[in-house]
């Protein structure tokens, strides 16, 4: 589904990704862990198409298409979803309106007919139950004045609505208390199917108690320096990152 080969990216003069290799297949859950500043969000942003980053070499393919050739909105329409570490405030636009625009733009891209108000309402009701989100939150300007937990829950709601093939969740657990974490994780698990895949970017092992990964990768200094199964995450929880880092030097 996703095939990243020797991906290098920089911002300004600073090289941040220094040769990333990653293969994700349908039905899999991958966790990307690593200390702060190692490049996890950068990888997520580059895959999402943020224009601040310049890809200097390497490739990324998604469902057979050259991902790096596509605009961010085309990537979304192809089925990529990025849950932001820091969801952005969209002044004056409610989640409901925002999602209507997104859905209909994507449907247009795919050559499908626009959804009408009745269809939206039905679908929204269904998805709201997934993440236990309140209608009142969806009527407010998106992310404006939302608490950390509300922002993350809203990200998962959007994901539920858009039904992506590949979801990249960037530190979706950070800033969540344990109840919110459980709700978010349950949402992600409910959306899991043999046809889609998830990349969970996280700092802590905690989230992985709820979302069980098939593979765990350690990103350090712009490279994946170690990969393993969920046992690796447990080991990281116990021993920290230092043993991996010192083994590199």
């Amino acid at each position, binding site marked *: 589904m996703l095939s990243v080969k020797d991906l290098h990216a920089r911002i300004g003069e600073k090289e941040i990704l220094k040769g990333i290799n990653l293969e994700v297949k349908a039905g899999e859950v991958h966790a990307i862990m690593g200390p702060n500043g190692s490049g996890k969000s950068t990888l997520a942003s580059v895959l*999402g198409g943020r224009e601040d980053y310049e890809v200097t070499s390497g490739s990324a393919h998604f469902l057979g298409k050259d991902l790096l050739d596509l*605009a*961010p909105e085309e990537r979304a*329409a192809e089925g990529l979803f990025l849950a932001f570490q820091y969801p952005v*405030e969209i002044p004056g636009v409610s989640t409901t309106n*925002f999602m209507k625009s997104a859905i209909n*733009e994507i449907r247009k891209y795919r050559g499908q007919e626009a959804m009408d108000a009745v269809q939206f309402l039905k679908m929204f009701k269904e998805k709201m139950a997934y993440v236990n989100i309140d209608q009142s939150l969806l009527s407010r300007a998106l992310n404006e004045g939302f608490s950390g937990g509300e922002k993350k829950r809203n990200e998962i709601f959007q994901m539920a609505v858009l039904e992506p093939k590949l979801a990249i969740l960037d530190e979706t657990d950070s800033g969540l208390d344990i109840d919110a974490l459980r709700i978010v994780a349950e949402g992600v698990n409910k959306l899991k199917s043999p046809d889609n895949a998830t990349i969970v970017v996280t700092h802590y092992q905690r989230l992985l108690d709820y979302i069980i990964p098939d593979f765990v990768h350690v990103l350090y200094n712009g490279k994946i320096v170690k990969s393993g199964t969920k046992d690796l995450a447990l080991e990281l929880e116990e021993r920290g990152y230092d043993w991996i880092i010192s083994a590199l030097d």
Partner: protein
Amino acid sequence: MLHNDTKNTLINLSELSGASSESLANFMDKGFPTNKWEEWKYASLKSLNEVSLSWTPEPVSREVELPLFQQTLTIQTLNGQTSCLGDLPKGLSSMPLNQFLDQNAGFKALYDKRNPLLEQNSLYHLNDAFNQNPLVFCVEKDGALAASLVHQWVLEAHSGPTAIQGKIILYLEDGSSLTWIEQQSSLASEALLFSNYALEIWVGEQAHLTLYKDQDLGNGVTHIDHTFIYQAANSQVDLFTFSINGTFVRNNLHFYIEGPQVVSNLNGLYVPGEGQLIDNHSVVDHRMPHSESNELYKGVLLGNATGVFNGKIFVRKDAQKTNAFQSCKNVLASDRATMNTKPQLEIWADDVKCSHGTTTGQLSEEALFYMRSRGISADAARTLLLLAFVQQVIDKVQITSLRDHLSAKIISKIEQSWIA
């Protein structure tokens, strides 16, 4: 007097008969404003001093489409000639100023003591020179017109540069109310049009005026709009200026608060595009105590548009306990657009609450990426953010059909600008 060698316009002017010589002299003394005038720094009309304008426009040649805002009456001013399409509704009367002054002593008293601020306003004098006896529309005491009146200011140039002037006076007697929807438009033409329009309004005690301006003028039109409003005690005015199109639009909007407990709400929304300049100069003159003015202007500047906002608030010595608020927010939707803002508060009273704020910014790149990552195209994302920005003003329009009409024009203008 100006030199007569290059000032063709003025030569033509002085040959016209029927003008008030005093007002004309006032204009001739200064001519068209240039950017050397402080109040016209960003919006010079210097070039009009050199153009040979025709001052006697031919009648409009085509039928003008009537809007469907469920109005009780449509009034048209076609190339400066005003007429009513249909009978006046009960409670509304209309006659030329001189006749009205003879019949309505209350109005005459107000009219005689009028004292507008006319500094750097040579175009008001020019208008006045040729509009000595304009039509007055009067809403009778305690009368409330059930539906709104539409006034269409329509321009059409025939051959060559044309000047079109006109004036209307509204008088809301004590306790009356009126909704006035003004549509300013022009019929397609390439020729230069100079439009100089004045609307003077006296709002009686306890009276309530709602005034909407829909300015949608074609290429080549320079439109000057003088709207002067005199408010008596306990009156309220809700005014909206929607400036959607026009090569050069200058609004001189004056509020004279002449009694206590007055409420003046000024709302403006402008969306100038490629090759367009929209200039809103407002004056709120608090002359009496215990009154309140709220000014909310929003601008979206597309292409290489220029916007100007100058908001003067005067709080005179006697105007204690005044509350005056002003806000002007702008988005430069293109990096070729410019916006000039200047709030100007002059306060002589000591017990007042005044605040003002202007901002000019660009759309957030972060927000745009976030939206695009959800599948919304860059253009659609920009449109969505801009509409959200202007919604605050549009939502205040109480007439659904008018709100939809304005909204549709603004959306289409913003969308068109991405294609260009």
